[in-house]
């Protein structure tokens, strides 16, 4: 190694740096820098041409100044000039300046491109290397335009030097990232994949990064990389530690390359070829075995490198999620790390285990470590490690250990770091809800949450507890009693006042029989908190008071007195004042009947995703099994078309729509509101055309609704402020019957009510629809029914449109929705054995018969939901047919009047990439196409 003198001959630079270091203050430093900048600027502008050495010196100074955080607005031209120098040292410093200081939208790019072009053509590997580094660092669109054609050639040319290949690979990756449209896949792609076989491990390292990115975007084109990556990995892990001399790091063969190869394999599902799969399993086993062997070196570098590979291997095992044996071994290995003295390992082990918990094969194994994890929560000194422990507890939670985990989280919450309290609160709230067998436990837990960490209990959490209490009548009495008791604490959190106020307002009557919580005591208790609360809480309490007027006539005068006081009626806050005035008036003028109607108990909230869960997802919590379960529960409701409200719920006017303010706090509580003028948004109303001739464009959101009906037959198809359309349908072979229910949600008659079914020309020939006209008058609150008889003549793609026109008040209404009559409705499921399935699959091997679609998952990937959807789609779900248990296969026959069409389908989920591949094979190409389109939209 050459002895390097400090400053390396550039005295001026050394002096400058020393000066800067000796500066006593920031001001002095800035002064010195400005002096230097002025000096350099004058040198650059001066008449005397600078020699390469001086240029180099000044550029180095500029780099240093830039590093100190000062923008450099000159010198770029000089740097560009250095690029064309023939001296490597000068050229190098020019490129360095450019890659550090020039960003991709600089005007100089064209000049730089010119220099790069010359260097690439020079065939001098060091020059080429510099040029390629520059593209990889700056990588603008203009560069992509200039070099996207050239780089792949350099990369795959036989005579390119290894180091140049390495740079070219990452250079291409950069261009692909900035301008994918300019980097067309071509015949070079297969040759790039073969770089995995390159003799030189440096080339393989660079190529693996490139291929990983390309494979994520184009999995099909790069599929062959799987077997090559496996065999390369296998050669590395089985090599003696001396085989790969240059790339062995502290006795670990090529650790960084191994990590990259394992990453690449995570772009794909487990290899299909049994030989490749076997070889990969062997590799993974070897890596796991090595972790148990005595270390070849006591140096920490050895174990770090080894563990890096081990963690990546475990990621791959979790990604494949198909080998129970490996998953359990991975879990045991991570379990050992949980107790390791290195904090880094404990952190990473907790992190990995969190994903492991979501695999059905290892969930139980993960649960055995619960005590260690709880201990970590209590003893770890690093908040980020404790955070991981919380995540893991959340992930491993199920019905069997929920009470223990929630209790531990609650007790940790008392001392938890402020930065993670809100998240813990959300997690506790979710777990308590999800695993509540006994809802009194749930109520206790949430009230505890508010007591311990009231400031961190967000609106979503207390909204949710109210939703649940309102929807479950078995817990209402208990909830009222518990909040009443909790409110008796001398100091209680405002959130508790909100929950208490709301619950007592609804269910205070359930405990009013007990003299210790008589109506007046309840009221006095709440009102004693009133003055300490913020405006929104006071507003809520006012609503509680008016509800009390209805619940307990005996406290009416007390409450009227309160409402009448100056502090209410003349309150400076307009919301409070308005409530006080209106409630007081309401309590005086309304008869008890009207009061009872207006102030009726809140109707149940529609079942929907927990708002807390949505919030946690927004906070980017790790996706875990519990999230999936939540959505599963919800979804299955959807798929079965089960407990949805009957299509014509005429009470709809008083049911809050899902988008309405959660508790109706924002508005005056449910007054018998006149139907809002429907022109707002103008979505569905064609105010200008009064003639019945024109058909409205499809209502917004109708596509989504349409897709939801592909796998189910019953539910609400459309709803706006006036009208609700419900569907119920049944299909057998090529025939079907659909009941359409039109509900008038208003109190006013609809006149000239005319629904029309419209089939496009080519659809008419294939689908036969028959129906009778309905009564042209629909009374306010009434529902009419229409029956449609359906016959499938031949396969079809488009869906019929249902157009409804009527008069409401003075306005003409025109609504169009797509009617969910889809080809798959005429499915008859067919059961068959594995052997038959594959035999038929092979028979349908004509390219036109197969349609395949690879797409990103739009919903959480859950096995049970997927199964339900495939069954809902109409085909049989064939178990134990596909060799990979993660895949789904189905079979069925589409019946039409003219023919019967056999259909086979296969759905391959890729959890890691959150992608699916769906393959349809049927005897008719248009059927394959349509079924594939329909089913792809479902996941």
């Amino acid at each position, binding site marked *: 190694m050459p002895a390097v003198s400090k400053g390396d001959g550039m005295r001026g630079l050394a002096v400058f740096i020393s000066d800067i270091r000796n500066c006593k203050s920031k001001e002095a430093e800035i002064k010195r820098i400005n002096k230097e900048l002025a000096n350099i600027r004058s040198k650059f502008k001066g008449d005397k041409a600078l020699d390469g050495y001086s240029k180099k010196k000044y550029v180095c100074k500029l780099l240093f100044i830039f590093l100190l955080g000062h923008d450099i607005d000159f010198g770029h031209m000089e740097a560009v000039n250095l690029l064309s120098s023939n001296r490597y040292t000068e050229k190098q410093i020019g490129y360095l300046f450019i890659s550090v200081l020039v960003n991709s939208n600089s005007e100089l790019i064209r000049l730089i491109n010119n220099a790069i072009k010359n260097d690439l053509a020079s065939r001098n590997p060091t020059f080429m290397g510099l040029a390629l580094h520059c593209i990889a660092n700056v990588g603008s669109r203009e560069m992509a335009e200039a070099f996207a054609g050239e780089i792949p050639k350099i990369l795959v040319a036989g005579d390119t030097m290894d180091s140049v290949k390495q*740079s070219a690979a990452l250079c291409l990756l950069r261009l692909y990232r900035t301008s994918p449209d300019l980097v067309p896949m071509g015949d070079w792609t297969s040759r790039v994949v073969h770089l995995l076989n390159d003799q030189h491990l440096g080339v393989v390292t660079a190529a693996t990064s490139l291929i990983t990115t390309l494979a994520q975007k184009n999995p099909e084109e790069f599929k062959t990389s799987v077997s090559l990556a496996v065999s390369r990995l296998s050669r590395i892990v089985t090599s003696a530690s001396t085989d790969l001399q*240059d790339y062995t790091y502290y006795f670990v063969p090529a650790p960084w390359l191994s990590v990259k190869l394992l990453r690449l394999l995570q772009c794909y599902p487990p290899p299909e070829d049994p030989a490749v799969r076997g070889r990969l399993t062997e590799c993974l086993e070897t890596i796991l075995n090595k972790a148990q062997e005595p270390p070849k070196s006591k140096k920490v570098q050895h174990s770090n490198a080894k563990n890096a590979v081990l*963690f990546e291997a475990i990621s791959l095992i979790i990604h494949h999620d198909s080998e129970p044996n490996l998953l359990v071994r991975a879990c045991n290995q991570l379990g050992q790390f949980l107790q390791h003295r290195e904090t880094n390992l404990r952190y990473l082990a907790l992190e990995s285990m969190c994903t492991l918990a979501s695999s059905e094969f290892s969930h139980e194994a993960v649960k055995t470590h619960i005590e260690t994890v709880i201990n970590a929560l209590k003893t770890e000194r690093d908040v980020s*490690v404790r955070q991981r422990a919380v995540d893991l507890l959340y992930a491993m939670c199920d019905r069997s250990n929920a009470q223990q985990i929630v209790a531990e989280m609650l007790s940790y919450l008392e001392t938890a770091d402020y930065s993670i309290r809100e998240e813990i609160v959300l997690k506790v709230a979710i777990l308590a809800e999800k695993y509540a067998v006994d809802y009194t436990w749930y109520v206790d837990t949430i009230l505890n949450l508010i007591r311990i960490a009231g400031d961190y209990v967000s609106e979503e959490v207390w909204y949710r507890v109210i939703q649940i209490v309102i929807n479950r009548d078995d817990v209402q009495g208990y909830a009222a009693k518990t909040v009443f008791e909790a409110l008796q604490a001398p100091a209680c959190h405002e959130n508790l006042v909100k929950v208490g106020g709301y619950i007592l307002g609804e269910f205070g009557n359930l405990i009013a029989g007990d003299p210790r919580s008589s109506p007046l005591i309840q009221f006095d208790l709440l009102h004693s908190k009133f003055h300490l609360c913020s405006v929104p809480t006071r507003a809520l309490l006012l609503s509680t008071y008016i509800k009390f007027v209805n619940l307990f006539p005996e406290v009416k005068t007390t409450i009227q007195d309160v409402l009448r006081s100056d502090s209410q009626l003349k309150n400076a806050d307009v919301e409070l004042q308005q409530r006080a005035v209106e409630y007081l008036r309401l309590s005086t003028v309304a008869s008890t009947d009207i009061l009872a109607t207006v102030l009726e108990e809140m109707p149940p909230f529609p079942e929907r995703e927990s708002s807390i869960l949505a919030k946690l997802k927004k906070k980017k919590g790790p996706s875990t099994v519990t999230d999936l379960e939540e959505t599963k529960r919800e979804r299955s409701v959807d798929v079965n078309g089960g407990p949805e409200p009957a299509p014509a719920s005429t009470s709809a006017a008083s049911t809050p729509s899902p988008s309405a303010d959660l508790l109706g706090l924002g508005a005056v509580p449910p007054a018998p509101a006149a139907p809002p003028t429907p022109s707002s948004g103008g979505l569905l109303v064609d105010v200008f055309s009064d003639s019945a001739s024109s058909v409205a464009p499809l209502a917004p959101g109708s596509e989504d609704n349409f897709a939801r009906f592909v796998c189910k037959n019953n539910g609400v198809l459309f709803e706006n402020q006036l009208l609700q359309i419900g569907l119920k349908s049944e299909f057998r072979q090529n025939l079907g019957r659909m009941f359409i229910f039109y509900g008038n949600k208003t109190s006013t008659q609809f006149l000239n009510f005319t629904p029309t079914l419209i089939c496009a020309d080519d659809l008419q020939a294939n689908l036969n629809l028959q129906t009778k006209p309905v009564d042209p008058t629909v009374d306010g609150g009434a529902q009419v029914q229409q029956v449609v008889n359906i016959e499938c003549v031949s396969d079809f793609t488009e869906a019929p449109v249902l157009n409804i026109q009527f008069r409401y008040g003075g306005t003409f209404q025109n609504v169009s929705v797509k009617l969910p009559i889809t080809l798959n409705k005429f499915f008859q499921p067919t059961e068959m054995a594995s052997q038959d399935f594959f035999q038929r699959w092979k028979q349908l091997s004509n390219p036109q018969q197969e349609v395949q679609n690879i797409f990103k998952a739009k919903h959480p990937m859950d096995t049970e939901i997927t199964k339900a959807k495939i069954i809902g789609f109409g085909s049989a779900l064939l178990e134990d047919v596909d060799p990979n248990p993660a895949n789904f296969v189905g079979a069925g026959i589409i019946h039409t009047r003219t023919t019967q069409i056999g259909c086979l389908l296969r759905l391959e989920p890729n959890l890691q990439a959150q992608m699916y591949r769906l393959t349809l094979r049927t005897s008719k190409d248009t059927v394959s196409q349509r079924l594939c389109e329909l089913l792809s939209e479902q996941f």
Partner: protein
Amino acid sequence: MIKFFLMVNKQGQTRLSKYYEHVEINKRTLLETEVIKSCLSRSNEQCSFIEYKDFKLIYQQYAALFIVVGVNDTENEMAIYEFVHNFVEVLDEYFSRVSELDIMFNLDKVHIILDEMVLNGCIVETNRARILAPLQILDKMSES
């Protein structure tokens, strides 16, 4: 992918910065200040990985100098952690017992070494001899 590679001393002075995604200069200063603050506030008992905004910081401390790498979630933490050490070993070999001063006075060379090891945010070379090869050519040329 590696987002940035920083060398910052205990006083919070940046000694090397390399960004693999464009960051405005004023934001750089801010980011570097925040990054070093979060590293300095940690004890030996804490782990070497910090979640910071939407990426992770992986750091190692050598005497008064911190090397901090910002990565997104596609990187293996342990591999990057050990890669930092490999980088330091390369510097140590070239400068024979590297110090903060070596890095300041030879900023261009440290950049060359880093460019050989990381390109476009990906690890490209880990073998010491091959990393140092271009520098050796350079040194030979300036001697002659």
